[in-house]
């Protein structure tokens, strides 16, 4: 192993190590298995090797972008969080992971990307604030249309749109899934006893954003908070495996949070101001040149062409005289 494996993932906020579910799953699994990863938290998906986040660059310079592939790769490297599980428990993990994929994921996509108020007030705002300058104008919108497309295909409905009926249907599935998970967890610390496994990573990745993100339409959050064991399960993992992010979250919740954010952003803000000034100047100059208010080339050409004209006219006059 020459270079360590690198993991590119979305930056964290709201007291979470990352805002994206897939990134959280990988981060949690790596923590559970004790895999030494070089984690790079970025907010520009174009800087990841695969063009999307999360992305995983192995020591052989291979790039993986699907969560399951990354976990399989880690498992092959002997970082296996499921080592203690019996075959039947392994089967159960697979089943509950599928359950979340089918029932909870569509609702997650809906809450964060499709529900108009949540999307405009929280998701788009977060991504627009965190992405670098030119990307923040179009990437959040593009991400949303990708997610909408995905939800449409998952639900098998081409003309699906945000609305009461869809919300009800998705949330019914999601609350059922949450109830089932809560029943399965019972009073245990983790799903299979005292040590966390890949299923715990998946559950954490899916639930933590719902639990920690303050959304204007927080029906799922309310329901999750009413299931004490699941809510405790998430806070426990945050406390035990991501102590730094958990504390950041607590300090950020206090009032001085916006100021701190501003101070952190000063250099990039300067750069943004400079860039926008340059772009504005460029636009004005371009307009001036196009409409002919300023015409450098013209003046020079006329200056060059004038003397021969005068000579010509002079010769014409001479001919006329002659």
């Amino acid at each position, binding site marked *: 192993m020459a270079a360590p494996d690198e993991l590119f993932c979305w930056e964290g906020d709201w007291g979470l190590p990352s805002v994206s579910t897939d990134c959280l799953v990988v981060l949690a699994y790596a923590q559970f298995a004790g895999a030494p990863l070089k984690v790079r938290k970025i907010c520009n998906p174009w800087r990841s090797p695969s063009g999307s986040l999360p992305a995983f660059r192995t020591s052989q310079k291979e790039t993986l972008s699907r969560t399951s592939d990354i976990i399989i790769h880690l498992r092959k490297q002997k970082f296996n969080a499921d080592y203690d599980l019996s075959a039947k428990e392994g089967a159960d993990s697979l089943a509950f992971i599928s359950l979340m994929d*089918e029932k909870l994921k569509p609702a997650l996509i809906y809450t964060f990307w499709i529900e108009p108020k949540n999307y405009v007030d929280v998701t788009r705002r977060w991504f627009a604030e965190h992405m670098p300058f030119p990307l923040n104008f179009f990437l959040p919108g593009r991400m949303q249309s990708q997610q909408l497309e995905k939800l449409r295909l998952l639900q098998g409905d081409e003309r699906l749109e945000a609305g009461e009926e869809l919300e009800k249907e998705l949330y019914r599935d999601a609350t059922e899934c949450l109830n089932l998970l809560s*029943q399965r967890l019972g009073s245990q610390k983790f799903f299979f006893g005292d040590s966390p496994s890949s299923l715990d990573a998946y559950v954490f990745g899916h639930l933590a954003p719902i639990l920690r993100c303050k959304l204007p339409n927080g029906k799922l959050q309310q329901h999750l908070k009413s299931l004490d064991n699941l809510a405790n399960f998430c806070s426990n993992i945050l406390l035990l495996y991501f102590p730094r992010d958990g504390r950041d979250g607590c300090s950020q919740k206090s009032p001085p949070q916006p100021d701190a954010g501003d101070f952190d952003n000063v250099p990039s803000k300067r750069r943004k101001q400079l860039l926008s000034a340059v772009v504005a100047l460029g636009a004005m100059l371009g307009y001036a040149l196009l409409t002919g208010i300023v015409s450098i080339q013209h003046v020079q050409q006329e200056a060059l062409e004038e003397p021969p004209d005068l000579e010509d006219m002079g010769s014409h006059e001479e001919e006329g005289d002659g």
Partner: protein
Amino acid sequence: MIRVNERVLLCLSLTAAEPWPENATLYQPLKGEGFFSSSCSLYHLQTYLRMCGLPVQVVCRPNAEYMSPSGKIPFIHVGNQVVSELGPIVQFSKAKGHSLSDGLDDVQRAEMKAYMELVNNMLLTAELFIQWCDETTVSQITRHRYGTPYSWPLNLILAYQKQWEVRRKMNAVGWGGKTVDQVYEDVSQCCQALSQRLGTQPYFFKIPTELDALVFGHLFTILTTQLTNTELLERVRSYSNLLSFCRRIEQTYFESKDS
């Protein structure tokens, strides 16, 4: 995958009191037409209804897909109502007082639901993938079977339209870049999980449940469908307890009642 629409639920609450009628009819397309998905859901539903002890008559119609209120097959015609798709039909029979999973406790019910989603998530997607994304299968079998009931230009158009739709779906669930071998590997993984869960028991839980009907529907279809190669069949066949599970259900619910 399974959607319960509001209208159906409304119907359910209105008609819950009526008993199951004798003349219930299950409509399906012609045998082998939609092959994997339709015959899976058909076997699933028939097994389920037989487990509940509800009599149903099966009728084949080539245009069943367009007769169904939601455009999905199979659908049943019970009394003066038409209910389509598996989820609503299961809900419907539940409302009539026939349920299989009542004897389970909370944890078991959670596990049952989870395994059902495992089958939907992996086996169903794998079947769709092999049926519509594996070039040899598509050109030799699928396109022909799907287009059979229609005349010349329409059969090709509909088949290509369906193929395009399935490919987009595969991309959405992250299966777009998979190879056929990887899909076989997923099928093995899913069967391994089911086999572990089943162990030496006759059913997945102590009584027959929806899960048994669903697993039987899929495995029986895989075991009885002819494909361009036998890879998928071999993968399923290597789990002997799943094989005997299928045989047991077939004997209990199909052979004895057909005779």
